[in-house]
């Protein structure tokens, strides 16, 4: 997208939109009025039947929109003239809730953001709070987090690839990837105690240690998974029908991707090598050897392929992390920063008092603002926290990748065919729990 620039008071600024806000609002209102309780509306311009456009409501409960996303599409025949994604159907006031909960209490809510990879959200929040308080988290906890985050990335990419292929007509792969996700749920069950809403990361560490049984299970699963991954790639990567369906669809250039604010695999598929794990290594990512796959094309096919490649890199990271897993505590051994050990609470008065204080008052963090972002499976997941020195965040803002990535949707589908919308959404991989917060 080339921005038009104009001179306002001698300063170069972005040109004002052609339509002023009021007119745009009027136009939108007219479309929505026409759409009320109907799936489609045909608008005939100037009584000329050949000049008619159809407005189609896609979603909010459409199987291909991956949740409750609604897109109002203006169609000229089968070509999309305009597309407006409507968000907010899953709004649960996450950010406002956070203001009334201590950091610790709010942590389980972060599971419900991007529910395809809950562990990344847990980690992102904990890292942000730890950065604010300047906590030194034990290495073992960082390793457990890294392993779990990468497994969560695989889980998220598997769902994305499976559903994207299903959207484009290949249902079989969907079943294979879901079987694999079931295995991943077993891993999470063994590591955290819950299959889906893990709530395992804690501020200052993790809730429980990893068992030998779990380590062995992950190792065995990885072996199988690598084999399956290459099998799937042989099956799909160079499949003519698949390529013809996806190649060149939903194209977005490098410049546009940056301008819109795409992050994660969607950005890297457009040829920008930006991965927070490499650009600003957090936790212990600087200790591992892995590549950041970058593809140049920026179409749906590259967005599929980049996820496949990323899973291979994740496997490498997990293998290295399991190999290096050090001995040690899984939480900070300081009752002012994290919960005291259970064994101490039962026997020592001081630990008991800290337990009460931590629960009632929350963490005592310094005043200040902090932003910390991690490379979540969908892109840059950041938490911005404004602390007034009490146990509750004064303001907590979530920079969710799905929300930002969805902004690229109109540009990707406008001018394309209506059937492309489905694969473009699949390739963008939004999760509405995170986009609507």
């Amino acid at each position: 997208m080339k921005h038009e620039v104009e001179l306002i008071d001698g300063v170069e600024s972005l040109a004002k939109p052609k339509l002023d806000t009021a007119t745009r609002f009027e136009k939108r209102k007219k479309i929505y009025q026409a759409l009320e309780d109907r799936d489609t509306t045909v608008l005939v311009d100037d009584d000329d039947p050949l000049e008619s456009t159809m407005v189609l409501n896609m979603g909010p409960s459409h199987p291909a929109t991956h949740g409750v996303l609604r897109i109002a599409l203006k169609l000229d025949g089968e070509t999309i003239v305009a597309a407006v994604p409507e968000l907010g159907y899953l709004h649960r006031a996450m950010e406002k809730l956070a203001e009334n909960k201590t950091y610790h209490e709010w942590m389980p809510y972060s599971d419900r953001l991007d529910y395809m990879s809950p562990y990344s959200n847990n980690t992102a929040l904990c890292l942000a709070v730890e950065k604010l308080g300047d906590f030194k988290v034990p290495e073992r906890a960082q390793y457990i987090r890294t392993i779990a985050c990468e497994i969560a990335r695989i889980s998220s990419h598997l769902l994305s690839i499976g559903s994207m292929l299903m959207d484009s007509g290949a249902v079989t792969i969907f079943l294979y990837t879901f079987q694999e996700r079931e295995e991943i749920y077993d891993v999470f069950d063994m590591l955290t105690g819950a299959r889906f809403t893990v709530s395992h990361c804690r501020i200052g560490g993790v809730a429980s240690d990893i068992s030998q049984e779990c380590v062995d299970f992950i190792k065995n699963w990885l072996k199988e998974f690598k084999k399956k991954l290459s099998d799937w790639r042989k099956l799909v990567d160079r499949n003519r029908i698949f390529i013809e369906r996806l190649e060149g669809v939903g194209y977005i250039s490098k410049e546009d991707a940056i301008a819109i604010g795409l992050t994660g695999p969607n950005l890297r598929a457009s040829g920008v090598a930006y991965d927070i794990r490499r650009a600003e290594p957090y936790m212990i990512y600087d200790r591992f050897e892995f590549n950041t796959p970058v593809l140049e094309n920026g179409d749906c096919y590259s967005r599929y392929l980049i996820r496949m490649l990323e899973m291979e890199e994740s496997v490498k990271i997990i293998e290295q992390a399991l190999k290096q897993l050090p001995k040690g505590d899984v939480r900070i051994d300081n009752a002012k920063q994290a919960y005291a050990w259970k064994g101490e609470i039962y026997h020592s008065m001081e630990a008991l008092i800290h337990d009460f204080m931590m629960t009632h008052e929350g963490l005592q963090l310094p005043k200040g603002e902090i932003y910390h972002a991690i490379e979540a499976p969908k892109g840059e997941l950041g938490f911005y926290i404004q602390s007034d020195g009490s146990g509750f965040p004064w303001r907590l803002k979530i920079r969710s990748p799905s929300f930002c990535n969805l902004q690229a949707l109109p540009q990707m589908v406008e001018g394309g065919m209506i059937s492309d919308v489905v694969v473009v959404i699949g390739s963008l991989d939004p999760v509405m729990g995170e986009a609507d917060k």
Partner: protein
Amino acid sequence: MQTKNPPIKRIKLSFLERLYLPEIFKGMAYTFAQMFKPKFTMSYPEVKWKPKPVFRGRPVLVERADKTGERCVACGLCARVCPPLAISMQANETELPQERHPITFEINMLRCIYCGYCEEVCPEEAIVMSDEYDITYHTRQKAIMDKQQLLVPMEKVQARLDFLREYKNAVRNAAEQAVGEDAKK
């Protein structure tokens, strides 16, 4: 705006790949091979899944070892920490050695999100996550579990208590930790 010919590098397919027939057979072979893999699913109500001690099922109150009542001292920590405010209780004095106990203790199972925080903060090891996951009710009222429904003997949750001691404690209390090959050296 999309164009018919976006500036991308097209993938070059070989003749066989363009022919598509080999691809079909490849796919068929892979699918066919799946048939001889062991069955992945479980016939659920007949075959029950047995959770491991790490699993966080329904939170329950632990009975005292001498079976005279619950261990809970009604300190209210679990009710305070519970993120969805599922727990409510009323404290009172008692003849039991702990001197305080809850006369009513309710967990609204429709609210509970099985996060395990109550177990984590309890200073008396009085509330733990059991291995029960198959919980259904016919009315909303029945979903509110009272003290009698929550109370279970200690033997039933012994595995979980052992797990907590081993995996939620400082490393000096852990018997044996799983470490990587590189760290063993």
